[in-house]
């Protein structure tokens, strides 16, 4: 199972959003897409998901051009987890997750036993069974994000595409959601997610794809890719990259400068 993007380019009129993007991702990987606002992360996801086909280059799903798949075939292969959703109507958590089965429930049919079983399994997997009857609007942001992930899981795909899954969550919820996502990749899922938090990439990413001005600025292991120089290129900010020992693991982190003098902090590592 893999996603391969080859020489992908995308433009709105004369404005080039993506230029010559290439990378490959395999099962069991958590790929972080980093980049400033407007770097083209969402557009990249739209292309990968087949939501637009006015791009140059090719996106291969298990070696096959995704343009050859129809929407329901694609939905059986990969699932999309949007940034954050603000539903107008208050569906219960269970009803919300059930919507992930849409592609598999024929028109004029209603969800059956199999669909409900999948919903229950997905809730178990993410430990949100207790929320089943709660209104989606009344649960916390972190729980909502887990519900939307569960909705993707019932599509029974092994590829999850997440657009800034933690952008509206508090510090603790961010980590709890990401740990769950990491668990999924250990079970063989391929997760591609975008983020504005390089620290999370250090903590969770197997691979980082850094986008700057629509081009690949770096791709590889987070420790190798996320250098001071690259951070400067991505975010136009001076940072210092340090390391701490956490049990067996050495974990990198980055600290921004206070500005003005461009003075970095004392490095611990």
């Amino acid at each position, binding site marked *: 199972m893999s996603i391969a993007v080859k020489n992908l380019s995308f433009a709105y009129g004369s404005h080039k959003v993506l230029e010559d993007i290439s990378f490959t991702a395999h099962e069991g990987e958590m790929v972080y897409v980093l980049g400033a606002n407007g770097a083209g992360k969402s557009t990249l996801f739209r292309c990968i998901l087949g939501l637009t086909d006015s791009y140059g280059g090719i996106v291969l799903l298990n070696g096959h051009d995704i343009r050859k798949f129809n929407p329901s075939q694609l*939905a059986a292969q990969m699932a999309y987890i949007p940034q954050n959703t603000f539903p107008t109507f208050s569906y219960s958590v269970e009803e919300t997750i059930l919507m992930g089965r849409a592609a598999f429930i024929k028109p004029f049919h209603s969800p059956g036993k199999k669909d409900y079983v999948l919903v229950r399994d997905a809730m178990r997997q993410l430990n949100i069974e207790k929320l089943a009857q709660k209104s989606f609007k009344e649960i916390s942001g972190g729980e909502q994000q887990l519900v939307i992930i569960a909705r993707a899981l019932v599509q029974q795909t092994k590829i999850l595409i997440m657009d800034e899954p933690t952008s509206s969550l508090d510090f603790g919820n961010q980590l709890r959601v990401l740990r769950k996502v990491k668990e999924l990749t250990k079970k063989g899922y391929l997760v591609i997610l975008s983020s504005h938090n390089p620290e999370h990439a250090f903590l969770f990413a197997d691979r980082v794809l850094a986008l700057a001005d629509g081009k690949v600025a770096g791709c590889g292991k987070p420790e190798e890719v996320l250098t001071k120089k690259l951070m400067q290129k991505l975010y136009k900010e001076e940072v210092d990259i340090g390391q701490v020992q956490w049990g067996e693991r050495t974990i990198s982190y980055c600290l921004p400068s206070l500005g003005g003098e461009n003075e970095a902090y004392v490095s611990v590592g």
Partner: protein
Amino acid sequence: MTKLNGEKRGYDHNSWRFHFPHTQIIKRLSILSVIGLILFFVSFAIGRYYVPVIDVIKILFNLIFPLEPTWSSQAETVVLQVRLPRIIAAILVGGALAAAGSVFQGIFKNPLVSPDIMGASAGAGFGAALGLLLSFGYYGTSTTAFILGLVAVFIALVVGSKMKNNPTLGMVLAGIMVGSLFTAGVSFIKLVADPMDELPAITYWLMGSLASIRLGDLLFLFVPVLVGIVPLFLLRWHLNMLTLEDDEARAMGLNIRQLRIIVIICATLTTSACVAMSGMIGWVGLVIPHFARKMVGCNFQVMLPTSIVMGAGFLLAVDDLARIIASSEIPLGILTAFVGAPFFLHLILKKGREII
């Protein structure tokens, strides 16, 4: 883990079905159906000429299994010729408008939307006014109204879909424009209409009434309403997907644009047919879906049928009122608002937080 007593809102680990307590929904729906059924028979009985409910049941039963008549032939005429068509029309129109309102609210992800959002009522109203002005006769007027209702929505649909990045907003904007165009058309027709004869006819028609419906006319209402409602009913679970963002729904493998257009066509068929037959009856399509959601939740699978039943019951009750409240009939368009709006206001005051 100890088993929960009564197992109310929780779910059963061994059961695959553990969504919103079925028993509760079933209880509420049975109460609703019983009220509806009583209302149905009572509607035949009441009016200027009172027919005992027992006679009503006998007269209706007599249609299927002939009975020895114990009722007057006058009662039979009133029940079958006068009241039956009205009652059926009220049920059809109420149910259809509530269904159309429910799905339009889903499509536009907005609980303040009513079936006329895309101009169907305005188009049909213009058609009817035109028909009355040019003396097309009853059937000619209804047909013109029906066709212009469809035309109005078709224009809004085509123009709206040109707004590629947000077709929903496009359709709302186009619908409002088309609607105001036809409303202006109605005003113009009123201006040039003969104030002694045509103008009152147009005005009265626009206020909505089921008084003039005869048994033979019902087919013109029945067919388009059924053609519209049956697909909506069969698609009811998928209607939930309309409330998602386009990208979300498409990534789930659904052809959301196709679904939306099918639903708009169905809802427009029913709305236009209702307006063509009974004039402008506002309010039902806007507020009945609220009550239905309040009662059984947002899931269209249950909410749509509930909404249809409630809409039918509500219009039937209001039409009964229209018949008995004053010596001359009060138009339905006025009465639906007089009855419904205060009730809704009361509801907002009482439990404002939970309305949607």
